[in-house]
């Protein structure tokens, strides 16, 4: 019943969400309801508002007008980060690790929302909850790199470190902003497999922006199309056809192949 919107209390309810930046209107009256365990792909040409949507859902920026709730609570009320971190985890295209730290501390950074300042300071000397980091790195197959300086890892390994951080953070929702944009098809596939694997472990809800229709069909249950900040379509992936896609990417002259 993954795709049924009435299954349980929805994870996300967005109503009339609008976000305007000085340069452009990023989101225009977006209505969106997402149920637990759904895998939602956000498609659309560059600049269509995909990142803004994920930022609103991640509590990074508040909407200008409209309401956005997560598990029934308004996102803006939770924006302190700490409460939100247990619910939402984000993964970025650039992994955004701290290159100067050993791998273990980048992974354990996923626990900071649950640790006091003193405990996190202590952890830099004497890693706390080390077993969590070891387990996560083992799942991702890079436990031998645990004490390595993160900057010395390859791109693919750093990706796994970012995933391991997400694993120890253990959020209920994973937001991924163009996680495969700069990767070749094989690596993109590998990352989606990892992400799927991580999400399956605790039946996470996943919302990811991407450009690949192939990956959307393979790893997601639902696809929404954004164009110029407006909701262009919102369909189960099996209804995603070329007509919808051509229309979505039309004027911009882009196409949505892999």
């Amino acid at each position: 019943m993954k795709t049924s919107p009435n299954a349980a209390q929805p994870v996300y309810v967005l109503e009339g969400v609008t976000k305007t930046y000085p340069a452009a209107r990023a989101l225009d009256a977006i209505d969106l309801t997402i149920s637990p365990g759904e895998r939602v792909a956000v498609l659309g040409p560059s600049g269509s508002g995909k990142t803004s949507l994920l930022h609103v859902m991640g509590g990074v920026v508040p909407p200008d007008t409209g309401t956005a709730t997560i598990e029934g609570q308004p996102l803006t009320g939770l924006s302190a980060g700490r409460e939100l971190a247990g619910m939402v985890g984000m993964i970025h295209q650039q992994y955004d690790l701290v290159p100067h730290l050993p791998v273990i501390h980048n992974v354990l950074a996923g626990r900071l929302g649950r640790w006091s300042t003193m405990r996190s300071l202590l952890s830099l000397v004497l890693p706390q909850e080390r077993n969590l980091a070891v387990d996560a790195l083992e799942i991702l197959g890079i436990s031998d790199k645990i004490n390595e300086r993160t900057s010395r890892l390859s791109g693919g390994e750093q990706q796994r470190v970012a995933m391991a951080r997400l694993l120890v953070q253990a959020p209920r929702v994973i937001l991924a902003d163009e996680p495969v944009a700069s990767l070749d098809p094989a690596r993109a596939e590998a990352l989606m497999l990892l992400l799927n694997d991580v999400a399956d472990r605790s039946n996470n809800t996943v919302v990811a922006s991407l450009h690949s229709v192939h990956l959307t069909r393979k790893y997601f249950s639902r696809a929404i199309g954004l164009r110029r900040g407006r909701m262009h379509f919102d369909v189960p992936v099996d209804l995603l056809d070329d007509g919808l896609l051509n229309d979505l990417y039309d004027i911009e002259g882009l196409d949505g192949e892999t």
Partner: protein
Amino acid sequence: MARPRATFLEGRRLVSLALLAALVWSIWQVQWDQPIIHGGGIGAAADLFRALVTPELSPSFLATVLKASWHTVAYAFGGITLAVGAGFSLGVIASGVLARSSTGRWSMIVGTRGLLALMRAIHELVWAWLFVVAIGLSPMAAILALAIPYSGILGRIYSEILQDVPEEPLSALRTAGASEWQVLLYGRLPIALPDMLSYTFYRLECAIRAAAVMSFVGVAGLGFQIQISLDDLRFSEVWTLLFALVGLILLIDLWSTWVRRSLVR
């Protein structure tokens, strides 16, 4: 990203013109009809440079040099150690990165920056005079005189380095639930550390030079010995002392290179 076109007399260009005018005016002020070096000095200068190739190397004098170098290094390290502690604490506050609200941030930045400016506006030599008057000719006077302006300098630079850390890894930490203190510990400091360290080493070099000069106000050290030797016109000794100073700076340089390399590895 189009910017409005700047008119000819605006901002930076105006400052450049003012500086150019000041330069022209200062050249105008030089009295070209008088010799730049006064005549009697040439003989003394010749003596001074002749002594360059015959530095004083007798064991007893070398012992004096070593002891003076030790004093200078000790003052410099004492001063820089206090300055790193105070500069770090003040720098973190002055960077405003721990503030929750923007009013809090601005009052932190303005308040601490003012204090830091006050500390470094007064030169270490002036502080040294003040401390010698206040607590007499003691090593503590030299160390405090160094520590205060250096705290001001380090604090300001540290705060800027901490502010300039790239935002992406920090916001990733925040979305993982980190507070600003934790962002400081897990993001800003590890990223800023190499730059902070490298600047601290540079300041240590400056502190050695300053500690040497400091002894002109009467505390022991290389500068004090240079003054004694100069008073007696023993130029060979002066050179030995200057070489010792150069040696110290080179050693700090080597040390800093080594530390930074092991940090990057």
